[in-house]
Each structure stands twice: as structure tokens, then as C-alpha cells.
């Protein structure tokens, strides 16, 4: 109960931080055409924004809402500088206005991950095992909703092959010995926030894991499954990126609480902006 309560509380806090909303402090992107604007805190085409040296407007709208770059609470544009000795600055702002006009403030992003898993817990008692494979492949796809806020909610569905073995079994009073084979896999659905920092993304999700196990012995198979609460954490790095797409490497940790199973996974990840508005 403590764990469930603690988990639920943690999730509320986590999701609450998204709801309360903090404008994005995302790292700058390597998109040359927007380099100037980014340097001054304007949103990137991916919805990210780099902070200006003067500080970023935390309340009352972002630059992409107003076209302004200064946190005065009053919308600014290049005309604010007309006829003043700051005309040069006004021209610079006008140039950036032009470049940033029409940039999206909402992006629905699709994510795809394929990786190799290894079961970290529980420790395996290898008594009687003839052969075993710890881990397997994992795949996940999801959606991330990016806005000017620095936390982006995501929803993800995944599958992971976790363990398989073949072993000699003493059946006791059930009769003699036999060879059995078994395998364990999990399907998951996770929700949570993602935090983008430069070329990295950190995610923490809570969700449900459906652990499925199949055991075959004495010529018959039995499958059983259970639904467990758990957490998923991931850290991604994206060395390759374009305006709409990113390709990188991701490390994941799944803590399947009631199932007592922890799985680490690593592999390539791909993201692409599906809708922008």
C-alpha cells in the first residue's frame, strides 16, 4: 500500500508539474536558419527554446505567443523601437520577428524505440538449468506532446522479451524428472513527462505492465499473465537530427513493482514531428 500510495503521489506530483506549466528552457538546436532567434530565446521549429542571456519570460506568455523577445509583460515588435536611437536594435528584432513568425508552439511527436533488454532483477537461481537467455529484444512506440513548457507529456506502448530457459525439473510426488522450457515477456503502457535538455531527453513514466509467462513441461504448455504497476525511466541522446526528425541512442530502465522484475534496455531511438501547429 505504501508503494502504491507513494507511486501515486509521485505521479501526481510529476504530472502536476506539467500542468502548472513552466515555459520551455530547452536547449538550442542545430538548425542554422533559426540560430539567431534561438540565441535570443525564441522557440525552435521543434518547440524548443533557448533562454536569452537576459532571462526568459516565465509568466505571461512566451516569445512565440507575442513575437517579443523581452520579458516586459507588454507585447513588443520592431515598431516599438522606431524613431529612437535604438533603431538598430529594432531592426535586429524585426529580422528575428520575420524569421520566427509562424513557428509552431504545439508539436505532436512520434517516437520509435528498438533495443536489447537484460533482466536486472530478480536474481536467477540457475539450479537445474540446461540453457537460459537473459533478455531479448524490446520495441516501443509512443507520442510526445511538446509545447513551450519544458516538460512534455508522453504516452508509450511497448513490448519486451525478458527471459527464457530450459531446465531439468524434479517433479517430486508429481512423478520423476522432466525437461521444461519457459519464457517471460512484458507489454507496457506508460505515461509521464519528458524533459529535453540540449540533445538529451530524460523521461519518467508510470504505467501498467502485463507480464506474460509460458511454461512447457511434459508436453503441455501453460500461459499465465498478470497486470502490474511500474515505472519506466529513459535517457536518450540524439546526435543526428534535422528540422523534423531525430535519431539517437536510448537507455531504459523498467521497474515492474508488483512483478518484482527490473529490466534494463538499450538501443536506437527515432523521433519525428507528426503534427505542428
Amino acid at each position, binding site marked *: 500500500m505504501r508503494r502504491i500510495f507513494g507511486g501515486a503521489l509521485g505521479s501526481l506530483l510529476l504530472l502536476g508539474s506539467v500542468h*502548472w506549466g513552466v515555459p520551455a528552457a530547452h536547449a538550442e538546436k542545430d538548425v542554422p536558419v533559426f540560430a539567431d532567434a534561438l540565441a535570443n530565446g525564441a522557440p525552435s521549429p521543434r518547440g524548443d527554446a533557448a533562454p536569452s542571456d537576459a532571462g526568459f519570460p516565465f509568466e505571461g506568455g512566451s516569445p512565440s505567443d507575442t513575437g517579443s523577445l523581452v520579458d516586459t509583460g507588454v507585447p513588443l515588435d520592431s515598431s516599438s523601437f522606431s524613431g529612437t536611437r535604438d533603431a538598430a536594435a529594432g531592426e535586429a528584432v524585426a529580422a528575428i520577428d520575420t524569421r520566427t513568425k509562424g513557428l509552431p508552439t504545439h508539436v505532436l511527436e512520434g517516437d520509435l524505440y528498438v533495443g536489447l533488454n537484460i533482466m536486472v532483477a530478480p536474481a536467477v537461481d540457475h539450479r537445474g538449468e540446461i540453457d537460459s537467455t537473459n533478455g531479448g529484444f524490446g520495441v516501443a512506440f509512443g507520442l510526445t506532446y511538446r509545447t513551450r513548457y519544458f516538460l512534455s507529456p508522453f504516452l508509450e506502448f511497448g513490448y519486451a522479451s525478458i527471459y527464457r530457459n530450459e531446465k531439468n525439473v524434479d517433479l517430486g510426488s508429481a512423478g520423476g524428472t522432466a525437461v521444461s522450457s519457459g519464457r517471460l515477456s512484458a507489454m507496457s503502457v506508460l505515461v509521464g513527462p519528458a524533459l529535453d535538455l540540449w540533445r538529451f531527453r530524460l523521461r519518467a513514466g508510470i504505467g501498467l505492465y502485463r507480464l506474460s509467462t509460458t*511454461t512447457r*513441461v511434459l508436453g503441455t504448455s*501453460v500461459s499465465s499473465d498478470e497486470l502490474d504497476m511500474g515505472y519506466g525511466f529513459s535517457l536518450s541522446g540524439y546526435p543526428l537530427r534535422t528540422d523534423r526528425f531525430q535519431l539517437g541512442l536510448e537507455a531504459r530502465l523498467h521497474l515492474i513493482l508488483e512483478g518484482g522484475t527490473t529490466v534494463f534496455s538499450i538501443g536506437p531511438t527515432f523521433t519525428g514531428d507528426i503534427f505542428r501547429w
Partner: protein
Amino acid sequence: MNALASTIRDSWGAMFSRHFEHLGARAGQLKWILAVLVTLALAHPGCSARGTVLHPRFEKGGLLALAKPVPEKTLTDLGAIFEAPTGSAILGGDPVVVYATRNSVSLFAAPNTAYAIMRAGCLDDNARLVLEGAWRYSNATDTGLIRLFVEPTEVANALCKELPIPPSLLKDIRLRGVIGRDEIAPTEEITMAWKAPRSDTSNFIVAAHHGACKTIDDCGASENTLESIELVEPFGASVVEIDVRLSKDGVPFLYHDETFNPRLTQGPLCHGQVRDYTIAQMRAACRLKFGEEIPTLAEALETTVNDTRLAGIWLDAKEPEVVAPTLAVMAEYRKKAEEKKRALEIVIGLGSSEILEAYVAATKPEGTRCLYELDRAGVESTPCDFWGPRWTRGPMNEDVTALQGQKKRVVYWTINEPEFIALFLKAKPDGILTDRPGMLRNKIQLMALAGEQVGPQ
């Protein structure tokens, strides 16, 4: 917060520092994130604060490795009440109940619900009788080794030679030796002097819940195992309660929950609904928490009949489907117990109206006995000999007396706190089911010593 930002800035470089400065300015939000991460960490089972229980043993088997076993018939004569220990304070300052079975000697003390389980051996051509084992607080993970010698020599000699203890020497009996903490060889001196003979409380049922202890209490065996059943007597109980479920292939077996889970089982492939598994598949995929196989009911009864002197076994049927197969196995082992001249009562526990209906509908071999766990009216309308009310309903003194008047026996379940045990004993039940049978054994012996009635009149 600034220190955190500073550390990150130093290590991650200028690109990151700019962003974390902004996070630093938004300390409120960062605080929430950290709170969430800490909450998640605390919620994960790997971060649970429960300590690990040691099961210390004497190096190289201790003196018992050099000793001869004590004859089974006489060791029980050592059972008595001893004065509060002098020397070490580990077992507290109250009288200690020494409970001897045919192959073990146990100490039960009230403070910290301490117990010690020891084996006995004769040394030096029967001149010395040594008791060696481990002590533990039931309510904590404190544990250690204990080694006691039975004095005077004449008593040790008599027990080792399978002779009765001379009555004139009873008051001179002392247990003297050493006790220590953890796995370190014990050095604290401890002495206990004989105080009074044990009282005959054999009519009172001290029933052990799920075996000697719950898995989570870690007394050296998982609950509902053969190993745990063998530990029940040293832990002070005369009856064991075990949980029975039905496998997919129709075999009654011992297990409490509806699912296989890390609380009770281990094995990467051990997940899901218990009813999905055949016995063979269970054996292939699962082991119990401390590595034991999941036993069938037949194996459990075989162990109870052959390897213990328990007076009874209470089979708690966890689902209606298991009732009929369980009745058949019960009949088989009643017969085996009779053949071995074992006075063993085998009773099926009925914990819900659905299970009761299954029991009523089932064909019952002659001699089948049941325990009904719900209301008084229910037990009056069933052929059950026992009523097992849940303790949370209160002592219900009048109901207890009324049912005892109808020749039904009353056993409360499951009481673990000394204060509640004392309260419920006032209702004069026939027994109590507990996770701490040693504590209950201590309580009823001290009550009897004080002249109080234990159990029904």
C-alpha cells in the same frame, strides 16, 4: 540549489550551465522534480528499509558436532519455567519458558517476544548436556548464538542415559552458558535457574499460522512449506494451519495467494494466476521465497504424520474447488496416521459461504471434521466441530461459552500482539491461531503458573 547548479555547470560545460541557471531560478519547479524522484526511489521495493535477518550458526557445527544425540523420550523432561536470566540482558528480565520437544529445546521470553531454538547433545561420556542454537526477537531482526549447559551433572547424566530426572534435583536445575549477538561466537554469560514445572496445557490449542512463521518474518523457512511444518514444534505450537489451493491438474497444494508474486515466490518465470498452473509447471517455474519447492497437500500431510508429533493440522481451503479433493487426501492421511498410532486431528477450514456450500455438497468420508470461520449462526447450522472467528470481531465471550456448551471448540485467528492475546484468553477459548506461537506458549504457561485457568473449564 545554487550548489547543484554550480556542480552541473562545472561538469557539463557552458552549454548546459545556461539552462540549469534557468532551472535554478525556477527552484520551485526543480524542487518538485526532485521530490518526485525521491518518492519514486522510496516507493521501489529495492529501496525498502526492511533489514536482512541473519541465521547464525556455530562455526564447524559447534560442540554439537562432537556430541551424541539426547534420547528423544527424555529431552521433553527439561520443559519447565525458569527464573529471569542473570548475566546477559538479551533475553530480558522476565521468567523464561523452556519448551522441550523430542529433538529440540526452545526458550520463550516475553520481552521483545524473544525466542531461542536449540538442539541438544551429550558430551564427555554423558557427563555434560549442551544446548546450542540461535535466538531471535520476533519483532525485530536482532539475533545471535546461544550455548547452554544443563547443570548439575546428575541431571545431564540422567537425560543422556534416558533416565527420569530425580525429583529431588528439579529445583537445582540450571541452564548456564553464553549468549551473543549476530554471528560472533557468544561471550556474554547467562544463567537461568529452575522456577517451576511446566503446566499441562495440552488441552489448549496453540496453532501456528502458515507454518512456523510468515515468510516476511523469516524464521528460516518460507510459509506453507514442509520445512516450515517441521519447525512448528520447536516454535511452540501443537497445531499447524496451512493454506490449500487447487492446481490446474486438480492437485491440492500449499499456497496462500491467488497469484504468484515476489512476496512469496521467486523465479523469473513465476508470475500470474496460481490456477493457471499444473503442479509440474509450478515446479518448473517457481520456488518459494527461501528456495523451497511448492509442496502438494499430500507431501505436507506425509511430513506431518511421519516427521512431527503435532496434534493437529488445520487445512484452510482457499477456494471452493479445492474442498472435495482435499477431503479425499484428508481421509487418506487420517488412515495413515491411525496406522502409525498417531493422534492427529485433520480439520478443513471453511472461510467463506461459497466454500461452505462446496463442503456441504461434497461427499464426506467418515471422520471428516471442519472448522467454520464466519458467524456463530453459521457454525451452529453446520456439522463443524470448530468455530474459528476472526479476532477483529472481538472476543465475543458469550458466543464462545454458548458454542462450547454445544461441544464445539473455538479457536480465534490470527492474534499476534501480547495485549490482545491476554484479552482474548479471558474468553476461555479452546485455542488461538498466531504467527508467534512461542509468545502464546510463554503466555499460557505463565498464566497457568499464576493459577489462572487457560482454555475452557
